């Protein structure tokens, strides 16, 4: 090997040696511990997220069911006189609500309007749920 190559080799090893540093002995332990903690936090977050989703689903199910029941009750109230006694509290409630609203807005919405409002709320709830479960998850 000629002088030039010898010098190059010597310089390279000298530079390497000068640049080298070592981490503390417990460095790997610290990294692995942090990873373990991150995973644990993520597991907890997932659990909380699932619980929240279940609660949201429960709330929206109640809203939807209420809407369906209300629609059913309003539907049969128009066709059958025998159910009037059963429906009277519902009708009275809407009458009272309509009276209050007419005082505020100058008109009284019918039971159907309330049903549409319920359906709109249910649709918004379902959208919010889908958004949380499907769309946003897709971005992560």
């Amino acid at each position: 090997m000629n002088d030039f190559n010898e010098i190059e080799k010597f310089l390279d090893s000298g530079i390497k040696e000068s640049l080298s540093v070592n981490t503390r002995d417990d460095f790997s332990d610290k990294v692995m511990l942090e990873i373990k903690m991150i995973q644990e936090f993520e597991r907890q977050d997932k659990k909380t997220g699932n619980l929240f989703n279940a609660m949201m689903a429960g709330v929206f199910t109640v809203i939807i069911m209420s809407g369906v029941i209300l629609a059913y009750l309003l539907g049969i109230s128009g066709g059958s006189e025998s159910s009037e006694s059963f429906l009277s509290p519902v009708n009275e409630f809407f009458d009272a609500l309509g009276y209050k609203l007419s005082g505020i807005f100058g008109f009284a919405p019918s039971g159907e309007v309330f049903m549409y409002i319920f359906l709109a709320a249910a649709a918004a709830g379902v959208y919010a749920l889908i958004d949380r479960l499907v769309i946003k998850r897709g971005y992560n």
Partner: protein
Amino acid sequence: MTEVKPEILERIRKGETALFREIVDTYRNMALSLTMKILKNREEAEDALQESFIKLFRALVSNGFESRAKFSTYFYTIVYNTAVDYYRKYYSRAFNVTSIEVHEAYYNDGDELTRDFEPMIDRSVYGEDSLSTEKNLDIAEVQRIIRGYINTIPQQYSVILNMFFINELSHEEISTILKLPLGTVKNRIFRAKEKLKEILFREFNKEELLEYIKV
């Protein structure tokens, strides 16, 4: 060249977290050397490196790393960018690897390489008469000079030298990570070595040095 086997990466991706330690153990010293060149402080350098490993882990488990890419290039890109972010946070200014500031009126090309190194010699850090060609070659002194030179050259050089010699990245990979022209990368490595050669031959007898090297 140290490269992690794709099977290891795949197993980590599938949930064998403990295997990640293998990667940490393999790369920690080489990567710390890089963060040290940027941050110049062990605490900050280790913090930046720890965060780099966490980022790498997250990327592996979330399929952020494509197995077609070269692992070491991907990893050192994370390490470099994280260290640069830390630098910006601690020093409240951007890390400049591109240009070298020159203020001296009598600046000669290459002076920036020994700007902080020459005063060390003047202050007789290496001993009053240690740097004499008359004196017998003391190899410990040679090594101290190389170390002193490497530790005082501007970061624009030391980061590249580190990537080349310690991280074992190619010129092209360094150029990609630092977003510097390939020619600049090659030129800085060449100039840094030439200047070191010049210093050693100025301070020591060339024949003696060569004789020692050959042994």
